[in-house]
């Protein structure tokens, strides 16, 4: 078979340059471009999903914190309600107690007033009684008709003068 020279520049030179260009285009479009695009897309995808996961985690963390705050708030609120109720109850009890005391005081006061009035009334009626008795005794004694009303005042005056100190003591 015919052979070309070992070191002989020929048309092969141009063939090989063209071949190299064609091979470059083939490999660039069929191998390098798709593979690098695919890899960078995948990298982007992984980054995106990682970011997404992180975001979700953050959200969950926030929600958890919020709920915890709400929960402790509710607990605090409950405690406050109980405290308020206890305070109100105590106040009410004190009020009732005070009102009862006041009422008792009033009753006591009224009772003592009543007693005083009764006493005065009794003394007055006693005084009247004594006056009429003494007048009767006096009329019997002097056997003399006296003007009853004139004497009555006389006697009363006497009794008042004498008896005031006596009755008082």
């Amino acid at each position, binding site marked *: *078979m*015919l*052979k*070309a*020279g*070992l*070191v*002989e*520049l*020929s*048309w*092969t*030179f*141009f*063939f*090989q*340059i063209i*071949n*190299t260009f*064609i*091979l*470059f285009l*083939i*490999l*660039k479009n*069929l*191998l*390098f*471009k*798709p*593979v*690098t695009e*695919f*890899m960078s897309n*995948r990298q982007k*995808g992984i980054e995106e999903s990682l970011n997404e996961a992180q975001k979700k985690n953050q959200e969950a963390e926030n929600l958890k914190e919020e709920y915890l705050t709400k929960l402790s708030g509710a607990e605090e609120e409950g405690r406050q309600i109980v405290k308020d109720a206890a305070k109100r109850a105590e106040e009410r009890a004190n009020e009732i107690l005070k009102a009862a005391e006041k009422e008792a005081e009033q009753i006591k006061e009224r009772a003592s007033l009543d007693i005083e009035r009764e006493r005065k009334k009794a003394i007055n009626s006693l005084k009247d009684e004594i006056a009429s008795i003494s007048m009767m005794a006096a009329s019997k004694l002097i056997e003399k008709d006296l003007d009853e009303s004139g004497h009555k005042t006389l006697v009363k005056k006497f009794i008042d003068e004498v008896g005031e100190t006596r009755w008082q003591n």
Partner: protein
Amino acid sequence: MGGEGFGPRIVFYLPGGIPVTETVTVTWFIMLVLAVFSYFATRNFDKVPKKFQNFVEVLVESIYNLTKQTMGEDKLGFAPYMGTLLIFLAIANIAGLFGLRPPTADANTTLGLATITFVMIHFFGMKSKGVGGYLKGFLEPFPALLPLNIIGELATPVSLGFRLFGNIVGGMIIMSLLYGALGSLSNAIGINIPVFMTAIPAPLHIYFDLFAGILQSFIFTMLTMVFVAMAMD
């Protein structure tokens, strides 16, 4: 020229008498294999990578990382070309293992690739520095060095191309000489079946095809990256 020797066989002629050599047909075959590989590698890509997808991802990612480390973050756009160069050269250099003539054992291939590198160096150098800044680079460190700078620039693709070509073609020649010698040895002892051709060449295949092949493809790609990056910075 033509006839006997280690040159590539002429497979057929295009209309107009343009010869198409083994180099070109093997390159086409490699291109086909890589195109099919790429097509199936990127189909059925899953979000959770499986074995094969892992391999493809690691391959592409390491090429991008290598470009990033060697050329810098801002020149990551060169990664597809550098990857093409690396993959093509690696497969072309170990093609000898599959009984094919390595396309890189042809100065046309290596000098063609070196020419692309040369054009890239100066095109992107001009694009990055501006024509004035780029031309000023030839007068540095002082204007008297202008001829030397020009020779240096022109030497780059030649050394780049011939380094790769020499390594691969040298290995190929040594291997075929060895096979010839082993065949003759078998005949000399009187065995019709060339038994010595088994096992003995294997370590040399590992060295010349695998080791030197991968190493040279790496060197060529790295140098291309460094030269282009240097021209731009």
